[in-house]
């Protein structure tokens, strides 16, 4: 069954089972590997993407429910997004594996909260696990990004 949707501003359609998670459509069907697999149960946030601007866990988002909607991935953040600039300025990543998900969550947070407090950051970002312990830099980078235009 063909399912049509937008990825990073481009219309695309895939022919996969409608219960296939968006994560695997992005990674395997479309070859966009920036979005990562971490737990498969929406526990770690590595697979976070935007669906119509909202952060969602793509491992728990069935492609059938994405038909006709807009998906943004780390590749679509553009490379020059203020979150990415802040991440680079502070050298946030270590192994880097969780960081696409971290940045997709952070950019969604900043889109709805111009100046998040520590509590706001805790509440919004606690769904994204980092095993390397980049949390202090993630927090600092979100605050730095909030100050960028």
């Amino acid at each position, binding site marked *: 069954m063909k399912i049509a949707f937008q990825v990073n501003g481009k219309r695309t359609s895939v022919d996969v089972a409608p219960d296939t998670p968006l994560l695997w459509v992005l990674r395997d069907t479309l070859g966009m590997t920036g979005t990562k697999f971490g737990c498969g149960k929406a526990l770690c946030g590595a697979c976070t993407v935007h669906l119509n601007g909202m952060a969602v866990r793509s491992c728990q988002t069935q492609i059938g429910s994405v038909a006709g909607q807009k998906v943004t991935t780390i590749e679509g953040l553009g490379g020059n997004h203020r979150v990415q600039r802040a991440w680079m300025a502070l050298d946030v990543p270590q192994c880097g594996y969780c960081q696409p998900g971290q940045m997709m969550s952070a950019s969604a947070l900043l889109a709805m909260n111009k100046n998040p407090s520590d509590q706001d950051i805790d*509440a919004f970002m606690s769904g994204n696990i980092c095993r*390397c312990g980049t949390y202090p830099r993630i927090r600092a980078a979100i605050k730095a990004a909030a100050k960028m235009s």
Partner: protein
Amino acid sequence: MTNIVKNETRRDFLKVSGTVAGGLALGFYLPSGPRVAQADAGGGYASPNAWVRIGLDNTVTIMVARSEMGQDVYTSMPMLVAEELEVDMNKIKVEFAPPAEVYINALLGGQLTGGSTSVRDAWEKLRKAGASARMMLIAAAADDWGVDTGSCKAMDGVVTGPGGKRATYGSLAAKASQMEVPRDVPLKPASQFKVVGNVRQKRLDTPAKVRGTAQFGIDTRIPGMKYAAVRMPPMIGGKVASYDDSRAKNYPGVQAVVQYSRGIAVVADDYWTAKKAAATLDVRWDGGPNANLDMRGLWQGLEQASAQPGVVFREHGDTDAGMMEASKTITAEYRLPFVSHSPMEPMNTTADVRGDKATIITPTQFQQLIPHVVAGATGLKPEQVEVITTFLGGGFGRRVEVDYAIDAAEISKAAGMPVKMLWSREDDMTHDSYRPAGIYKFTAGLDSNGKLHALRFHSTSPSISSRLFPSVVKDGIDPFAVEGIDNFPYTADGGLRFTYQMHDTGVTVGYWRAVSHNLNAVTLESFIDELATAAGKDPIQYRIDMLDMGSTKHQWSGLSAGVPVGPRMKRALEEVRRKSKWGKKMAKGRGQGVAVMEGYNTVIAMVAEVTVSSAYDVQIDKITAVVDAGTLIHPDQALAQMQSCINYGQSACMWGEITVKNGAVEQDNFDVYRVARINEAPKELDIHFIKSDGVPGGLGEPGTPVVQPAIANAIFAATGKRPRTLPYTPENIRAS
């Protein structure tokens, strides 16, 4: 050392892998290897040595022969080469090196990444590689120009000579690679460093990691590749008894269902199809020797083993007599659980096994071993196996194991197609090699002033090296079971007697960030705090007063300092006392705790500040750390590694616990295996590095153990409860 692994069969991996690590913990250096100068067959570049490639277009590529798993070898190691090669760090390219003898880590005896050794092993070697290449480039230019090498200079990729002569590295590279390799390679004094110690240096892998283009193992795509999902026995050491794949085989998109040594794989057009089809397999498992294993029996086994005398690994004086002389005797028993590595990228490997060649693309810490074990598993020769190392989505010691590369190779061979085998999180967490559980018993005799007079220590735990590197295990002692206390830093004039009792529980154990420092130093530094309390002394001053200023390297301290560390510890403790405002007035339910350790030639003193609720929920308010890691190559990333170690240690000591029931690991995902999240990270990290021009110490691991007893001791200061069973959950604190 030259013939790394002779035997090629999978079964014999266990036996022969010891030879890989013949140098492990012995600290020997290889003689300078054979000359590797070469030119690219296509004429695109030339290599004065194995670490430097200079393109005719002036591109300088520096080879990194260690695995990048977050710890920054992708930048810190090229910095060492660039310092002497005189090239701009922002213009170089970096590539991961293939397995080759020249890239062996002399501190470990193999091309593997671990033991916080990458920079320590590279410190002279890579600067010499850079300097040697620079000297050859200058020699080539001087020869072209008919001038003395002394009149030429190299800077920013260009050699300049008298009369405004100028030649780029690219134009000189081919000739330079044919020049004689200099024997005497002087290095810059620290005062002239421009690259080493640069506080503004950025990580070279950050842009790709921020754009999502960095290639981890899981991101591998090769032509014709299919996706494999697996079913492995849930029981440790279990096997497939029988299976019915009639549904899976007929699942749309499935290419093959194959049995391999460890389990059954479904190979399909995409991972989700493979995974769904694998779920339809009806498998009967043979539980194997551990089918009835549970925690009760497992701890009973450890307790019984702990009643054995064990083997002495450090002793001086007559400890029994020392105990008789003591005015007070304190005993304590600590228990540590199994914990998992759980890096964010689950285990995976892409394998393309053909009749006469195998390509293995994998996130590994041990690329050198893979050709040998894959050859053993596929019937190929090691030289027919190409290994490509990707970025690693975390390692922490898990990827020293090569099990998942063997599995992928077997699956590719059986399916007759290139496959990317990917484990689910559940596969990963239940098929880890866990940090060993164990029992740690202390008896201390204090003199009339409360000072430690005599100490007995008896640890009981599984040996990791007995499986992975049996040749380093001697007379019942695994050097990687006694770290963190073999270098005991205090004095006990009445005698010391430290013993180790090996005990296999049936659970597979593996090297886990900082390995046995997490066992011995965590319990030791908690126990020293108990002694300070018993003596009525301030925990920091108590430690300082007892430091052994003349301590020397003990025979088992393979990756430790090897020189007296008493003075370094004293300084770190004094500084952490000041920086942490030690002894400040704190509200009820709050407390400070200290710990100090030397590991990997790095000395760390930490003070934890915690708030403990009446229900014994612990919040970590602040960690103050003072670190003496010698010369810092990449200071900002030295800091990152301390931040990282603290996080990893916190997760382990606050929540980490793997349990087994009916032979199977019970925790399978992050809902039931808790790790630190951003809201649980310490509210404040205050990390200081002692300025030093000493040789670099390791940084990837040593902070991990230190934070744990610092937290335990802070919990005691806050509550009067001394948790001796980890993790420090409300239940374990309450029960203490």
